[in-house]
């Protein structure tokens, strides 16, 4: 099911943990929905000097958190802000269709931590991002990331599937 890279990051996640005196913190998801990620960053000279995460979730969610933390570490805030879901999925050598929403979550959590830092240290006002509900138990007949209609079980064409 998972690529070797995913399994490697799942088995040996990089940068696991918390940072007590973090400069920025971002949390997304909810255990009710299956996945929850918390990112902590330390910023030095506009660079992400240290990064840690904690994740409740499936193999993909853990691997995504790990690789996002790796990708962000040492980068400037601007560079790190540009990490997209697609880059995450590609770095992991692909994710199963129904797991692609996990890559969204990882990038979202990082961005949230960066925004938190900016808000706290630089007073920048965060643009609240329009969040999609990833909740698999929500009332929506068809969660947009599901890949399948959860009502009838039928495949949802790609163009609608991952419209984050």
């Amino acid at each position: 099911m998972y690529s070797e890279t995913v399994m490697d990051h799942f088995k040996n996640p990089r940068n696991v943990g918390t940072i007590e005196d973090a400069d920025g913190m971002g949390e997304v998801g909810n255990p009710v929905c299956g996945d929850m990620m918390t990112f902590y960053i330390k910023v030095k000279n506009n660079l992400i000097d240290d990064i840690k995460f904690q994740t409740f979730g499936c193999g993909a969610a853990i691997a995504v958190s790990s690789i996002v933390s790796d990708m962000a570490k040492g980068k400037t805030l601007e560079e790190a802000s540009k990490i997209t879901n697609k880059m995450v999925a590609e770095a992991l050598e692909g994710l199963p269709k129904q797991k692609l929403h996990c890559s969204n979550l990882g990038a979202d959590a990082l961005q949230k931590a960066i925004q938190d830092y900016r808000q706290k240290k630089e007073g920048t006002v965060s643009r609240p991002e329009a969040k999609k509900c990833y909740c698999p138990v929500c009332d929506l007949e068809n969660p947009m990331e599901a890949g399948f209609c959860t009502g009838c079980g039928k495949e949802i064409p790609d163009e609608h599937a991952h419209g984050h």
Partner: protein
Amino acid sequence: MPLVYADHVAAMPLHPKVYEAMVPYFNDFYGNPSSIHDSGEKARTAIEEARGKIARLVGSQDEEIYFTSCGTESNNLALKGVALAHQTRGKEIIISGIEHFSIMHTANALERAGFNVIRLPVDQHGLVDPAVVEKAITPQTILISIMHSNPEVGTIEPIAEIGKITRAKNVLFHSDAVSSVGTIPVDVKQLNVDLLSLSAGQFYGPKGAAALFIRKGVRILPLLDGGIQERGLRAGTENVPAIVGMGVAADLAREEIPQRLSHLKKLQVKLTEELPGRIPYLRFLGHPTQRLPGNVSVAVEYIEGEAMLLFMDMEGIQISSGSACISRSLKVSHVMLAMGVDAATAQGSLLFSFGMQNTLADVDRILETLPPVVERLRNISPVYRKAMAKKT
């Protein structure tokens, strides 16, 4: 590292005697049971013998057994076949909230086609209350379908009691006994059911063979139109080797059920008793006593099931979970939600379903392997950190 396969609700290995019995029907007796020559005759005789064996397993007459290709087809045939045949009498169907997808989604399809579907609640152990069934019946009710046992949480339903009610009220009663037949005793007379689904794959028989018991005199329409195989109720060339295998598996089940019960119970009790001493914050799911032997359903709090499964799989231990991440529809188990288990807890559910080749040593392997996996995942879980922070 020997494999510990403890996912028998998903699939079971073939009993070696079942496999042996099937082999000649692949290589020598390949005729079509509808052919009148000797090859056809041999095939026809073989499936009729198998029918008899299955009838004996569930206490029915031979001609009340209809072969299908899988449990899902049996369930679809039961619900849609009865609905179509009886719709002029009424359009109300009653099911429980913890049915298998093949009942639940079939009921949804009938609902879209204009039927009225009543979904009954269950208690925290997953039990349907017969009194609630009785109250739900109206003059429009044409069919009630309540599963015999739920494989996800192990609960065995009070089918015989419900059967008394449906018989008294003269309403057709179907039970999905796919996860029961072959593991625990199931007798259609004693249960008072009018239709009952069973599947060979759930009692060490092959995939590709299942059956629907239809009590004599019950009107039902076919789902697959075509030739008049299965007395016109299920067209299509019969899967002879699989049906032969199902027959042998039924005979074995009939003989072995007492041993199966005690062996599986032993494994279940050991795991259930010893797990809490090794892992804190567990919650056992389903009924504490009225449950499938060999079935241990437990929620490990603060972590997610798929991640546990992957680590267990790396250690050669194969199990299952009701987590949303595992279901391809990305929904948490509707069974657990119906029982009032909150979604976060259901995410951490694990299902150990033992089979006859499992041993007490397998349980020991699980008891050794699971705790470090849980610890590792709790250590990276923000949910666990928060929960512990609250407790201290």
